């Protein structure tokens, strides 16, 4: 069966610091991978998606970036965090219309 991991679970970072969130998927090959953000009291916003190694599409322009160095690894990064980057970050994978989400990372930028 497929499993998706995210870490860390919680992160508190100062404004202007860098960010690296990691996501890995087990039990499937060549999945589509996604990064979402859920801001407080809001829905799920798609940030990036990837259909293969090194292939990244950005949905929303911002100071975040994503990379896919391996088939089942997806990384969300920032060089300098903003207060507005606070939120709940979710990684997801899919091989069809159904998207399967990881446990999420709660990021608080102070």
């Amino acid at each position, binding site marked *: 069966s497929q499993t998706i991991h995210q870490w860390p679970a919680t992160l508190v970072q100062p404004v202007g610091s860098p960010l690296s969130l990691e996501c890995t998927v087990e039990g499937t090959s060549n999945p589509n991978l996604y990064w979402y953000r859920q801001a407080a009291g809001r829905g799920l916003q798609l940030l990036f*998606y990837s259909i293969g190694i090194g292939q990244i599409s950005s949905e929303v322009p911002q100071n975040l970036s994503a990379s896919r160095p391996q088939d089942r690894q997806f990384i969300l990064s920032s060089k300098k965090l903003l207060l507005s980057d606070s939120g709940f970050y979710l990684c997801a994978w899919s091989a069809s219309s159904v998207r399967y989400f990881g446990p999420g990372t709660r990021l608080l930028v102070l």
Partner: protein
Amino acid sequence: DQQVKQNSPSLSVQEGRISILNCDYTNSMFDYFLWYKKYPAEGPTFLISISSIKDKNEDGRFTVFLNKSAKHLSLHIVPSQPGDSAVYFCAASVPSGGSNYKLTFGKGTLLTVNP
């Protein structure tokens, strides 16, 4: 422009009764619809889905109804249980090239099932 709308931010029902969660959409190109359940501080969990060629799909206590002419879908939970208390997201899908599908989420409805 919000293409998938969940107009009720919250819903409260008694244990054992039916919960009905509603969702409206505007894009007629959507061909697959999904419901997710989300507990606080956890990722959403896929619950049930329906293809646009069907009008009903049932899985245990959960049934999803699709009314294409009204661009409306609903999730019925019967009987409701306290463990069903969570935020429910409606989502709609359209192919966007290759193996990728563009999935649009509603803002969610908080369901509270009271014992």
